[in-house]
């Protein structure tokens, strides 16, 4: 030890600076690298880092439900699977194919045909119930995949079909309320960024990239029970009369809500692959027709309101015809002198025409327009129309006369039912709504309250013996209404053999709760008068509906008086 200390080893002179310099250089390199990474490669590295622990995940949002006024579901979205395949990439043994067919509940032949049709991508089945999709996944066939999608179910089926409508691909509304309320019902999926641990569990929410927007539920004014009732009775009437089509509307007379709206023919929204476009139309809102005599009360109301006459003024309708210019108006049955009340009760065209001609076109137009004719009913339903009411300036006398009994003017059924709120209430036109309303909208006065009451009394006479529609009577309730039998327009002239039979009425007369409007298109079994075809439907629907709603009776149960041996009083408009 001592020897070593005594002779110190002399190091080469450059050694220390060399080592020092090298180390320094390495440090500089390191510093440079870190600067480089920090400065230029930063974004890439950050991304790489965060991809190890953070994920963007999709937050699903589903479409709101459509429910009836009591919350019964009419349309619900539920996730289902769609099973699809890439036929070219598939590699399945015959046993596997057979198992696949069983799992999908498809015949093997259908499955092989789908796979052999030459396309690159094919849906094997949609929708598939989630548990069936699990069985498919368990087969682990290469090239067969599934995906989650929302499927919309319509428990009401064809009964509700034209009101609710349906959605197409990607849950977007295509018809009916589904289309009209798309922005309210539709949900917008969102996404968020989260931190996951090594087991794939989410441990922290970092940020919400896009907040999901859940679809909102929508309550319709429809009462499922009344809707079913309306549909059933309408169907029975259409079958019995071998009619082409028909529609029925029930309005709540106090709130103006559409509590039932049935259309036939209908379709099944859950399986609409074969449904004709024609069946999807909501005739009561999108189609117009010439109403016929159900227009008469408005003419009379205009005249009463103008003070031209009283309910007991005598109108001479003899000899049952009236010639204006070159045209002649006929009554279906000849009457002599009739009071204004009887003009309505017997549905005299001549009487109504004479009353109309005593008014100025502007007065008559004003009343009709105020009652909502020629204006869309504003239900917000897609394709809704307002019918036609030409401006008063262009009316010729014959047109004014025919309009008095509902020809030369067109309406849709909802509009017609709505117009009767004028008589059901005290002269006010109520707004109609397909959606449930909390407070009834403000009505707009059309005629004086006493005029409305007078017309209401005339309408009650229509269903009593001697009127055109004794078959509209309901046991236990006083009802009022008006028949309509109109020749259909066939091109430019009126058809001789095709009719539209209708009936609009309300009950109970002492305190009207419901308005029912029935329209039967081309009854083909011999009968075509509104009083014979549409009135019985009104009676059965109104009676059952009032009992369902527990409306107190306002007449004894044996109030129905049908004149069995007397031929029905007929009307020809």
């Amino acid at each position, binding site marked *: 030890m001592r020897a070593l200390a005594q002779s110190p080893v002399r190091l080469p002179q450059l050694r220390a600076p060399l080592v020092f310099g090298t180390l320094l250089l390495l440090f500089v390199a390191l510093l440079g690298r870190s600067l480089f990474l920090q400065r230029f490669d930063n974004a890439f590295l950050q991304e790489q880092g965060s991809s190890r622990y953070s994920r963007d995940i999709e937050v699903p949002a589903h479409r709101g*439900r459509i429910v009836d006024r009591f919350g*019964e*579901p009419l349309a*619900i*979205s*539920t*996730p289902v699977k769609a099973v699809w395949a890439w036929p070219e990439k598939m590699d399945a043994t015959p046993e596997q194919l057979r198992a696949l067919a069983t799992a999908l509940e498809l015949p093997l032949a259908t499955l092989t045909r789908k796979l052999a049709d030459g396309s690159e991508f094919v849906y094997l089945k949609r929708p598939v119930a989630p548990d069936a999709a699990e069985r498919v996944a368990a087969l682990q066939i290469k090239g067969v995949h599934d995906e989650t999608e929302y499927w919309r*179910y319509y*428990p*009401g*089926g064809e*009964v509700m079909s034209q009101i609710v409508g349906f959605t197409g691909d990607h849950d977007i509304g295509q018809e009916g309320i589904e289309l009209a309320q798309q922005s309210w019902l539709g949900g917008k999926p969102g996404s968020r960024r989260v931190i996951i*641990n090594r087991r794939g*569990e*989410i*441990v*922290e*929410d970092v940020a919400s990239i896009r907040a999901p927007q859940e679809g909102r539920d929508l309550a319709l004014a429809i009462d*499922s*029970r009344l809707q*079913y*009732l309306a549909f*059933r009775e309408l169907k029975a009437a259409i079958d019995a009369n071998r009619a082409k089509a028909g529609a029925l509307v029930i309005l709540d007379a106090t709130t103006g809500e559409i509590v039932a709206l049935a259309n036939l023919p209908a379709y099944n929204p859950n399986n609409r692959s074969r449904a004709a476009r024609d069946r999807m139309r909501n005739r009561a809102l999108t189609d117009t027709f010439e109403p016929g005599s159900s227009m008469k009360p408005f003419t009379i109301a205009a005249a009463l309101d103008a003070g031209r006459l009283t309910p007991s003024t005598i109108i001479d309708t003899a000899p049952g015809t009236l010639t204006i210019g070159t045209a002649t108006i006929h009554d279906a049955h000849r009457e002599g002198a009739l009071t204004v009340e009887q003009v309505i009760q017997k549905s005299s065209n001549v009487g109504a025409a004479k009353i109309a001609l005593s008014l100025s076109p502007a007065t008559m137009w004003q009343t009709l327009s105020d009652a909502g004719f020629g204006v869309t009913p504003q239900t917000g339903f897609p394709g809704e129309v307002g019918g036609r009411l030409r401006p008063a300036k262009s009316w010729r006398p014959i047109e004014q006369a025919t309009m008095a009994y509902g020809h030369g003017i067109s309406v849709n059924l909802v509009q017609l039912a709505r117009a009767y709120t004028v008589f059901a209430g005290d002269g006010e036109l109520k707004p109609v709504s397909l959606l449930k309303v909390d407070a009834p909208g403000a009505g707009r006065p059309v005629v004086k309250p006493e005029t409305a009451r007078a017309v209401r009394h005339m309408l009650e006479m229509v269903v009593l013996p001697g009127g055109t529609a004794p078959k509209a009577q309901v*046991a*236990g309730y006083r009802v009022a209404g008006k028949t309509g039998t109109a020749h259909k327009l066939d091109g430019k002239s009126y058809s001789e053999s095709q009719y539209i039979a209708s009936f609009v009425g309300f009950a109970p007369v002492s305190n009207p709760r419901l308005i029912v409007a029935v329209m039967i298109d081309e009854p083909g079994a011999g009968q075509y008068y509104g009083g014979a075809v549409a009135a019985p439907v009104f009676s059965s629907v109104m009676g059952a509906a009032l009992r369902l709603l527990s409306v*107190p*009776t306002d007449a*004894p*149960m*044996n109030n*129905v008086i049908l004149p069995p041996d007397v031929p029905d009083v007929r009307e020809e408009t």
Partner: protein
Amino acid sequence: MTRANVILLVLLVVCALSLVTSRHQSRKLFAELEREQALTRKYDIEYGQLQIEQSTWAMPTRVEKIAREQLRMQLPGAGRIEVMGEARP
């Protein structure tokens, strides 16, 4: 002086450790919350499916068919209805 430093150091360590634990706790709870939310979604879906099922069983068409055919029920005619309530004049 040293004493204060030691106390502060101990305090610091305790704080740091408690931060770690609470962080861990919060993550565990969050994962649990996520699981519960997933369950909520699942039950929501199931509820929707049950609603569909219920309304399919309760379809008026079906109810009426059973009432008429199996239970042999029918609507009473107007003559067989007696209205109770306040006496009519």
